[in-house]
């Protein structure tokens, strides 16, 4: 399980996270909702280990291991996956090569055997099929010339192939039409099980119609100000952040 305690983090000396405490038990999906600037993306970057963020206090552990002490690639091998809000384009890097390199790097770090090209293609094609995606996806350069929806679907494909134990979805719904949203949600739901947990970061409630969370947390001003069941998301949708934040204050 993911356990965050009193997490403080800053960028360039500016505090963004001001004491987040949160626990996501294995098998559960939690949503973090919050207005712009509340620290949602910062939380996902701090947990995945991006440079430029300084943790000034608090801890974050995953199954008892100190996440914050690990390199980003070690966190990935330990089972963490960040679905980016803005997936990065990699001109000159083929998607198949990228996915296989990532999968094998993780397997190597975990002391597992690597997949050869044939084994990998078989796995990738099976996952593509489940996600109703074309094999062409593998031949293209990573995210280059992809539409917003294709980029997000490519994130879900990576997640399906890498099989994380903990997924952080950073506003994966932004810029998606309803069909793409469903594909993304189906991808996440397919992974749900006793050994999988997810933290779904979103601004809007609509993704949570498709990925129904066990718990919803409201992030504001760098802190969790309210937690509740899925009904909290509906309340936010109906009353807006202002109303909920007022009640919390």
């Amino acid at each position, binding site marked *: 399980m993911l356990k965050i305690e009193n997490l403080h983090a800053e960028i360039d000396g500016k505090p963004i996270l001001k004491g987040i405490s949160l626990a996501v038990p294995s098998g559960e999906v939690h949503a973090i909702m919050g207005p712009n600037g509340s620290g949602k993306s910062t939380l996902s970057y701090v947990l995945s280990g991006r440079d430029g963020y300084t943790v000034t206090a608090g801890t974050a552990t995953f199954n008892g291991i100190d996440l914050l002490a690990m390199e980003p*690639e070690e966190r*990935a091998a330990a089972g963490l996956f960040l679905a980016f809000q803005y997936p*990065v384009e990699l001109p000159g890097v083929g998607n198949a090569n990228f996915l296989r390199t990532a999968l094998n790097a993780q397997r190597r770090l975990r002391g597992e055997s690597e997949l050869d090209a044939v084994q990998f293609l078989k796995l990738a094609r099976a996952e593509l099929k489940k996600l109703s995606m074309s094999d062409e996806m593998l031949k293209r350069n990573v995210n280059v010339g992809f539409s917003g929806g294709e980029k997000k679907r490519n994130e879900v494909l990576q997640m399906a192939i890498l099989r994380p134990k903990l997924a952080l979805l950073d506003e994966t719904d932004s810029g998606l039409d309803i069909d793409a949203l469903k594909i993304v949600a189906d991808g996440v739901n397919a992974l749900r099980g006793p050994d999988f947990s997810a933290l779904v970061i979103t601004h809007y409630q609509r993704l949570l119609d498709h990925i129904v969370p066990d718990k919803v947390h409201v992030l504001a001003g760098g802190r969790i100000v309210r937690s509740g069941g899925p009904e909290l998301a509906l309340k936010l949708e109906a009353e807006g952040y202002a109303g909920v934040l007022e009640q919390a204050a």
Partner: protein
Amino acid sequence: MNATDFLTRFDATASPADTAHAAADAFRASGLPTMRDEAWRFTNLRPLTERDFTPAQPGADVPADLLARLPALDAPRAVFVDGFFRADLSTAANTDVSAITVRTSEPLAALNTMFAQPGLALDVPADTNAGTLVLASIATGNGTDFHPRHRIRLAPGARLTVLDVSVGNGTYLHNAVLEIAVAEDAHLTHVRLQDEAPTGFHISTIYADIAERGTYDSFGLTLGARLARAEVHARLGGAHGAVHLNAAQLLAGTQHADFTTIVSHDAPHCASRQTVKNVLTGRSRGVFQGKIEVARGAQKTDGYQMNQALLLSPDAEIDSKPQLEIYADDVKCSHGATVGELDDGQLFYLRSRGIPQPEARAMLVHAFLTEALDTVSHEPIRAVLEEAVAQWWQRHPA
């Protein structure tokens, strides 16, 4: 070894050819180039002048490790050791230096003319596809200098692919000149793999004449040498000719490599293409000078030139000098240059997927090179280049 040292040696040489005398007169007047010469503004030959060289001798023993560095390509090969043709190591080629062209405009080519050693002399008959040939230079070191003079001529409609590879041990000066003539409708693919010893000096001067509808398609991968310069003079003398001078330079430590091109569009409807990529680590320095001359009558010229550098260290340096001289009014010529570092966002994306930092950096560097490597369409040669890049990366993880 300065100009006087070379000339003293030349004057002591018994009965040099007339061509050599003509070149020596020019070299006596010019001396070795300095950074005051516009064509050598960014490349200082001082490290060369600070060392003594003795003339290479034929018959040197070739260590197994050097032979093993020649690419395993299923093709005949012509092997030169310290500039001397070695029939015992070759499966192809005749050599001949009787009809040498006197080169006096470029001091290093003049020096080559003075001491010219019989090189590859290949004539591909008309409408013949001669397949692939490996032209290999092995330097055994020991402070020698050698000056091979190679010549490749393609008759009308002929085709040939040459993988031109240079390896070596120790300290030496490899000062080669290659004369190329591509006749009407002929097609020469010339891939250079310069993987000289880290203490070696490598100068290649290439003169290519391309006739009507002919193509000179070249790619150079520079990995080795303490100091290197590849200088290509390509002349498009007939309509609808094409010249591709693509290159990649991967440098580390205190290496210096210079890629200088002069493309003369002397006929209409010709195209020239140059994509040059530099990956620079340590305190290395890359130079690209690209001149495109479009003569008065060369209408509909299509020239493109792009030089890009990836600096992997704050102490690396790239110097880029594009030069366009256009005397025709209906032409399309473009050039550009970019300098950058690895992108943090891309690097984090790869690492967040579990790819360790060194591997992630290697992937991004490879991606940067891909556009240039993609210009090599000969698959087995492309594989040789990919392998050389991978090995370079293992030697110089950055």
